[in-house]
């Protein structure tokens, strides 16, 4: 399976590269760079910095100071890229490390950069936004639902251009601003209405022209389309637009495979924690937990999920670290002898993983009466697993009594509801009756 994937992966990455070039991103490297970066080869580093820089410069409006960055100053570009990634909340450990230092992080591996690239592409709808800008002339795209010009879900810190603009607005005279704003809205609405009027006029003209043409000229072909330069220009433009869209569709078909491959990059990263600056996979994973935790901007609902996956990741990393330790520190015969021990460890880990997954697994919530033990599930992993079968009877009993209690409560609630409804009905009947007897106010005419 791995083999089959790697044969196809060149195509997949090729389609991404093609799309990026079509979207006007400069210095897109060849597909081989990606493969080399997966194995953390040093020669891919520069290419990836360039790619990240040009991709981000498409996505972010630099302030004027940043524009002075020289085209070939890779160090400055790298610093800028790191800063932008940090601003937008990418919390990889190498970023945290290099931020404090003055250098631009020569020690950053190409795989780190590849992962960062994956993060950039997967954040929000960057590619779609760029596509919307590129092929803005196509009508279908203008009606695309919300092609936003900023990454959704990522708050831009107040230091950047947009934030500063918003801050400034709040400070000046409110009433006057509001009046101006209304005036602006009024004028805008007026323009919109005028535009609609023009559109109706145009439609009328087209209709009348068609009538004139169809009544004066026969079915002979007299279209003067060929010599018109405006038309050919328009044609060329829409053709390029269509080309870009084709490329984008190709990429969309390939995209799942690309992310599978990115997963494999992450796997490799976790399997061989190679960068010399990091002390070990466990330390790195731990750090990443800390960093992400500090900068977490996700909603609280997803936090639990994130914690779970991070914990799983940690456990996997620990497991792999043990494996590596075993391979390194034991003689070849030792591996054979320790295999039962290894199996035991693996079993233990598996059990813990199982209990963890169970504890965090989403439960069906559409039923009102959930059979759930009263204590918090997070304590379960710390309990010795072999005890759990013997304790099974007690919670179920407790649940039954609880269930009965809940049902009783519900019954009482329903009864009250019935009572309330009855009262409502009665009042309404009374009102109806009173209306029938009383004077109905009928307008004096008719």
């Amino acid at each position: 399976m791995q083999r089959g994937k790697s044969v196809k992966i060149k195509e997949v990455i090729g389609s991404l590269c093609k799309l990026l070039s079509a979207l006007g991103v400069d210095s897109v490297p060849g597909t081989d760079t990606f493969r080399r970066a997966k194995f953390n080869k040093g020669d891919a580093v520069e290419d990836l910095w360039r790619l990240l820089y040009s991709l981000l410069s498409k996505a972010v409006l630099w302030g004027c100071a940043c524009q002075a960055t020289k085209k070939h100053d890779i160090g400055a570009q790298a610093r800028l890229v790191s800063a932008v990634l940090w601003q937008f909340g990418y919390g990889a450990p190498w970023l945290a490390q290099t931020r404090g230092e003055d250098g631009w992080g020569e020690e950053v591996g190409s795989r780190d950069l590849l992962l960062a690239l994956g993060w950039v592409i997967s954040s929000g709808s960057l590619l779609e936004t760029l596509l919307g800008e590129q092929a803005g002339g196509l009508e279908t795209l203008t009606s695309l639902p919300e092609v936003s010009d900023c990454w959704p879900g990522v708050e831009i810190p107040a230091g950047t251009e947009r934030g500063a603009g918003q801050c400034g607005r709040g400070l000046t005279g409110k009433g006057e601003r509001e009046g101006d704003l209304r005036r602006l809205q009024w004028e805008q609405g007026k323009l919109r209405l005028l535009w609609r009027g023009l559109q109706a006029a145009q439609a009328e003209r087209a209709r009348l022209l068609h009538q004139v043409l169809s009544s004066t000229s026969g079915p002979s072909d007299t279209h003067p389309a060929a010599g018109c330069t405006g038309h050919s220009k328009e044609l060329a433009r829409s053709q390029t637009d269509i080309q870009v869209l084709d490329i984008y569709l190709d990429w969309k078909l390939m995209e799942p495979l690309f992310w599978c491959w990115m997963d494999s990059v992450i796997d490799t990263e976790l399997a061989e924690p190679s960068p010399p600056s990091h002390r070990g996979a466990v330390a790195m994973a731990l750090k990443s937990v800390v960093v992400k935790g500090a900068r977490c901007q996700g909603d609280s609902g997803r936090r639990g999920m994130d914690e779970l996956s991070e914990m799983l990741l940690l456990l996997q990393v620990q497991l792999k670290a043990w494996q590596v330790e075993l391979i390194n520190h034991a003689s070849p015969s030792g591996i054979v002898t320790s295999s039962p021990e290894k199996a035991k460890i693996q079993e233990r880990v598996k059990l813990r993983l199982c209990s963890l997954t169970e504890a965090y697994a989403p439960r069906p919530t559409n039923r009102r009466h959930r059979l759930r033990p009263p204590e918090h599930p997070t304590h379960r992993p710390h309990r010795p697993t072999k005890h759990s079968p013997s304790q099974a009877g007690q919670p179920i009993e407790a649940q039954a009594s609880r269930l009965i209690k809940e049902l009783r409560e519900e019954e009482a609630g329903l009864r009250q509801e019935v009572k309330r409804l009855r009262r409502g009905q009665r009042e309404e009947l009374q009102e109806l009756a009173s209306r029938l007897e009383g004077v109905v106010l009928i307008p004096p005419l008719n």
Partner: protein
Amino acid sequence: MSVVTVQLGQCGNQVGQELFDVISSDTNDAQRYRPSAQGKTYHACSQERFLNEEITGELSARAVLIDMEPKVIAQAMATAAKSGRWKYGDQSFFCQKQGSGNNWANGFCVHGPRHEEAVGDLVRREVERCDRLAGILSLMSVAGGTGSGVGTYVTQCLRDAYPHSFILNQLTWPYGTGEVIVQNYNSVLTLSRLYQCSDAILVHENDAVHRICAQLMNIKHISFSDVNKVIAHQLGSVLQPAHTADTHSQYSRNPMGELLSRLVCHPEYRLLSVCSIPHMSSSSLAYSAFTWPGLLKHLRQMLITSAKMEEGIDWQVRAPPVGQGTAEKLSGFNTSLANLLILRGKDVSSADTCGFLDPALYSPWLPAEGAISTWRSPLPFNKYEKSATLVSNSQSLLKPLDLMVGKAWNMFASRAYVHQYTKFGITEEDFLDSFTCLEQVISSYRHL
């Protein structure tokens, strides 16, 4: 350029029939009494706007009639045919056997979706017969079952089907004393939804029109037909051809667009009210003479006191000096956002409208030059030698709206009749959303 009229429910169909009657008689008069080129162009323009010429030479209204009961539609079609001047298209109506029973939810959630396709086809057929669709005018009551419930649903569908066309909703506001016990609920639900999908909501209050019939036209036993005639007169004077600021000496080809782009550019302010001057019985019409300064002076005072007729205006109310904040505005003064003045009749070019250019009449954020516009037509309208109509986007509907929302809220607080709506799928949240929407509208107008 043509306007497709959609007549919904009992009220909409009756008003629509009167409207076409006024328009066709006015158009005929123009041709008869002004055989000059002037009368001919007016006639041709009006005809293109509202009527189709069938192959047989008969004129049929560019209208679609929709009701859940056959009675009113049959009546309207018969009356139209009897006039001999115009008729409704033989196929351009849709009706059912069973009404909505004054239940808005029944109309909106059941009848509307069920007949969406049939109604859509009818409207599309009318639209396709226009060289240019100037806009869709839908006539309905705000409080009934079919008119408001189905009407709201149909308006939403029209908005989906014609996203770039102008949609103007004419709503007839019920009597304050009450025709239907749930009229305030229906009004809240209708208005809040129409506010989202219609371009403008033109409101006629039955109470105000009733007073016009009683005091100005001296009608002893006022029927719905009399009320509808007044509404049709006012609507007709807005919709008939006129020279606008953009077109100078030609009749506007884009009446609906120009009307809307003068009055309802801001999405928070979409309520329009109309008042006309003079109103009088046809018998006394021949013995009256009016001057433009007199008419405009009265109309201006009607605007700032938000009166709907010239009798009993409070002449004490004056525009506050410019530069005062909204908080110090005098009570009883009606601030406008934008006004459209339509003058029709003899010597119309001599009429001086500078009284409406006073910045004190308008909100501080929209300058008076952009807020007032004038349309003129040298031809008399509907037998009135001189007449002036004012379409106003102002605070004048604030009071009735606030009252209506307040009454509906009181009923809703005790959950009275809410189950009649929930059983058709209008939830309490829907009610709350509607209340929120209208409270926002009220607040916007209050702080104008």
